């Protein structure tokens, strides 16, 4: 039987609010009170650090003053991965799903998230791929989608960030994910036009359900 997936499209959500919502949902999912849930949203400008925050702070290139001037917030989070940027025009997906009983493999989960992003990129005619040793979805040598995940008792939180119309200049504030020699890209840069976010969200819902064998 295909498991149900509740999709919640939240629009623009402050980063701290997003973390709080996830915390609550993880507790409810762990207790079996809710179904698997996929949150789709955008964040205002923010730089977030993974669990190795000390290390990843080195990958912020801009001074605190400059970040403040640009209106970019800083947040430490409990996800895996290094520093990343979120902002308007980027679809952030937070799956709060239980990997039990048949998907208890963190690498498999990450590869599946990559697969979803690769399939969405393919909708626009781009063949994205994986880069050995570097998590995420890559078009050529440029990253279009990043991944940072937290797992508690096989319930997932945090997730992926996919650049649709993201202002890529903001990535110049950091060394994305600590990888200094590779760039970032977006659907907008690749296609040369702005893409409606709801349209891309539709693709995400469809491919997420297909890859994870869920039903929305």
């Amino acid at each position, binding site marked *: 039987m295909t498991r149900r997936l509740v999709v919640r499209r939240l629009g623009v959500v402050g980063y701290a609010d997003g973390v709080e919502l996830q915390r609550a949902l993880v507790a409810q999912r762990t207790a079996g009170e809710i179904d698997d849930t996929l949150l789709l949203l955008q964040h205002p400008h923010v730089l977030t650090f993974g669990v190795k925050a*000390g290390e990843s702070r080195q990958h912020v290139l801009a001074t605190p*003053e400059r970040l403040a001037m640009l209106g970019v917030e800083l947040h430490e989070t409990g996800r895996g991965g290094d520093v990343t940027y979120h902002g308007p025009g980027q679809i952030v997906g937070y799956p709060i799903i239980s990997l039990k009983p048949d998907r208890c493999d963190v*690498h498999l989960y990450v590869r599946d998230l990559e697969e979803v992003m690769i399939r969405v990129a393919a909708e626009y005619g781009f063949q994205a791929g994986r880069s050995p040793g570097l998590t995420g979805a890559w078009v050529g040598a440029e990253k279009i989608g990043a991944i940072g995940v937290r797992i508690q008792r096989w319930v997932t939180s945090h997730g992926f960030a996919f650049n649709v119309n993201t202002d890529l200049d903001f990535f110049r504030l950091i060394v994305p994910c600590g990888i200094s020699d590779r760039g970032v890209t977006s659907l907008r840069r690749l296609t040369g036009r702005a893409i409606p976010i709801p349209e891309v969200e539709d693709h995400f819902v469809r491919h997420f359900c297909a890859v994870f064998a869920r039903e929305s």
Partner: protein
Amino acid sequence: MADVVMPQMGESIAEGTIVRWIKKVGDRIDRDEPLFEISTDKVDAEIPSPSAGVLVEIRAKEGETVPVNSVVAVIGEAGAAVAAPAMIETVAAAAPSRVPSAAPPVPVPAPADRPARAAVPAPAVEASAAPPAEGAVALPRQRTSPLVRKIAKEHRLDLARVPGTGLGGRVTKDDILGFMEKGGQAARPIAFPAAPTPGAPTAAVKPGGNVEVVALSVMRKKIAEHMVFSRRTSAHVHSVFEVDYTRVAKIREARRADYERQGVKLTYMSFLMKATVDALKAVPIINSSLDGDNIVYKKDINLGIAVALDWGLIVPVITHAEDKSMLGLSRAIQDLAARARSKQLKPDEVQGGTFTITNPGVFGALFGMPIISQPQVAIMGVGNIEKRVAVMEDAIAIRTKGYLSLGYDHRLIDGAVADEFMSHVKKAIENFDPHAI
């Protein structure tokens, strides 16, 4: 007692890194309560405790990466003895007086008997009820890595007999392998763990020492990492040249005012940058990088100039230095240094250097032995410039002089080539064309 192991979080995952211990040694824990966090690839996972009890021992520190299924902690029944953790803050809490009567009799030497081992954490006490195997004397267990314990087990070696050279007398892999090579199986009087061999590194912090512990700043950590990385990467060799600056000192005096009118300071560094750029053009391998089996010659000369800051050190880069006049170079470094001090540098202004000049002389050093900024292959250090007694054609003269040192990567650059480069710099300074500025 229950061992807590690094869980297998996926089929292709061979190891995990402990990110954080949620519980401390001595804490009570319930089954399924979060115990520690690990990180693999891009995933952070919270690991629940496999059983209820008291966290008796933590074997893998935060930041440590261990293979899947290796023991990272031990959970004992409530009231179990607590092993001395590696962290010095908690040494006092694990003092021998805490050993409950239920624990097996274990010879615990009074600390006073072993003053030489003051740096070693208080003796660890195995709370295991099993008697020590093989009739070995139950010694306070030294902290060792799982690998070392495995080797010891395979060769039925008593680890206490192996002199340790690691931190606090810890037995390293090399110690145990060396011990076996030297026929370590041969009888040796069993004694309490040997005192650290003379010259062996000791812990930086002794319990109760009169010290202040301050966390490294991000910049300090970055510098530390890069310096060690560079030392490990390049075969550093240094050459020192003495340079006569008398001529440029005169030119400088004569032209200083001209520069100042344009808002630029004319310094010895101005002359040195110009001389260096010309020398790099003449000996281009100094402006290269080593990439595997290839030499990468950089067509641009991007000159990094080390700038000391109150809070560390930064190396802004003058790009396309080969296209700049001496005025342009002087203006560029003045601007970069000012912005470095006010934290206004843009990221790409500290990247892409192809050669670096550092200036230990400003602090009075005669010369420095600088470490290369990777992936460059050489770095020039400017020593203090001052008036010195010199011999000129059998007469004693007063000349403005200073030392220039070059640190270079002997993997790629031989002494002759380094000296050729330095001769170019020296010659350019000593015969400086006053019209070139």
